[in-house]
């Protein structure tokens, strides 16, 4: 658990409410990792790749990605992160979106998304899914140790 602090969570979510609910549930699960929240794709990409504090320059991260963004589609960001030349291609990406469309889910997995979570209106399921993210954070330790 000591290394948990070093894994930053990058949340790209345009809906403030969703962001708040996600954060609340992450905290409730006992995960105290730093969460950086972005409401648009452009600034999120800038942080991910170019910011000195960002995961490309500075340590591992977990990306929580919404597919519906005002300036671009979440799949564009996913493509960028998972591209062959990307420094972040091993960064786990959890796609969180309202769509449970099978084709879109398939597409996300094809692009390299690690987990796909549908934001269900059934809140308990959603909260459970978010809390499962704690398991993910422990998995991320491995690349960090190697690095």
């Amino acid at each position, binding site marked *: 658990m000591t290394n948990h602090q070093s894994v930053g969570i990058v949340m790209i979510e345009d809906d403030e409410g*969703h962001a708040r609910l996600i954060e609340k549930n992450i905290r409730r699960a006992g995960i105290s990792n730093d969460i950086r929240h972005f409401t648009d794709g452009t600034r999120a990409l800038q942080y991910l790749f170019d910011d000195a504090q960002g995961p490309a320059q500075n340590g591992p991260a977990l990306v929580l990605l919404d597919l519906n963004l005002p300036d671009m589609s979440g799949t564009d960001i996913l493509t960028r992160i998972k591209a062959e030349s990307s420094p972040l291609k091993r960064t786990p990406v959890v796609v969180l979106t309202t769509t449970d469309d099978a084709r879109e889910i398939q597409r996300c997995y094809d692009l390299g998304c690690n987990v796909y979570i549908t934001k269900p209106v059934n809140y308990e399921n959603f909260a459970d899914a978010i809390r499962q993210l704690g398991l993910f954070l422990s998995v991320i330790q491995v690349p960090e140790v190697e690095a």
Partner: protein
Amino acid sequence: MILGFAALAITGLVAVRAFQAARDHQRWLVHTYQVSGAITRSGELLERAENTRRGYMLTRSPVARATYDRTVSEVADALGRVGRLTVDNPRQKRTLSEVRTRVAAVLAEEAATNALADAGRQDQAVALFRRQAAALPFVPLRNALSHLNAEEVRLLGERAAQVQAAVRRLTIASTGVAALVVLLALLSLAIVLRYANDLTRKDAALRDLNDTLEDQVAERTAELARANDEIQRFAYIVSHDLRSPLVNVMGFTAEVEAAARSLAEMVDRAEQHAPDIVTKEARLAAREDLPEAVGFIRTSTQKMDRLINAILQLSRQGRRVLTPEPLDVAALADGVVRSMQQNIDGAGTEVIVQRPLPDMTGDRVSMEQLLSNLVENAVKYLQPGRPGRIVVSGHEARGRVHLAVEDNGRGIAPADHQRIFDLFRRSGAQDRPGEGIGLAHVRALVYRLGGTVDVRSELGQGATFLLNLPKSLDIA
């Protein structure tokens, strides 16, 4: 036309009459010659009798006497014959009786001289003869005979005129008949031609109509498909964007609920430890108002979520790629029935797939969804107390496949026949689970396949859903 044939018949009758007249004339001609011959014969015989009398008077030869007697009897015969032949003509009868009188007078004179000659008083006989001859008794007789003859000839002339008239009539009639026949033929030809023209024109008009109808149908179908596409896209966007805020409502409702729970606990604790700080309002809010509000928000959002999901599902169906393939509809229907066999058995229903069902080229998934929706509805809405009987049947006509799903269930009031195909609309007693999606889905799907769906039903009398689909799915 009828008038024409009547005229033809009349003309025919006239012709027949004319022929009869001609034949009659023939008979009258023969008759006239017979009469004429008999008259001439009578005249000759009278002349001969006179000659033999004179011969006997001079020679007193018994041969001459015998010949005279024979000739006289022949005269009677000949006149009798004339009488028989002219018995129908009163004028001839009159003339003949005059002739007979004169003949009788002449014969009486002759008999007088013969009697004197018989008695050997030849001189007296000759003297008597001279006296008689001076009166020229033969002149009026010959005149009378020639009157008789002239009358016959006149009658013949009259009859000839009649025949000529008849022949003229016949000619006219024949000409008339010929003209009429030609006219009728022309008339018939004209009528036949007009009918034929009419038929050709109507046929062409029908073909035109048919062609434009096909175009119109194709146009309409394309329009429907376009409208359908638009609605699908719209539905997708709307449902997607509606879901986002709903997640918040639901999520924060859960938060409020959790907060309300801890507040309620606090109120409970406060009541135990310091009852005076708990107001009636606080108690009510924590124990009743908040949970109740949360409950209502929750059921409403859940319902909204189901509806949005339904729209989303519908829109997703509309975006699915159709893949036409040859389908054995009967086997497909069997598969559909098999897949819901448990439901069917549970409802005590029998489902009959009536063979033969037409084959078609279509999208398998769509066809399965259509039939399964319709059969499912039929199983779902049975008339209580009546064992369900559902029949899937079909036929093919002019490049279209008609399928029918008929049940003996509770039926649908005619006022609801259009409504039931609308999204979220349902009919009858709301005693079955459902959101009113199935038939909306069916209609959207059918439109997409270039078909139509219709319902025939009366309340309590069962319902028949009719699908009209292209025999061969054509993806534009």
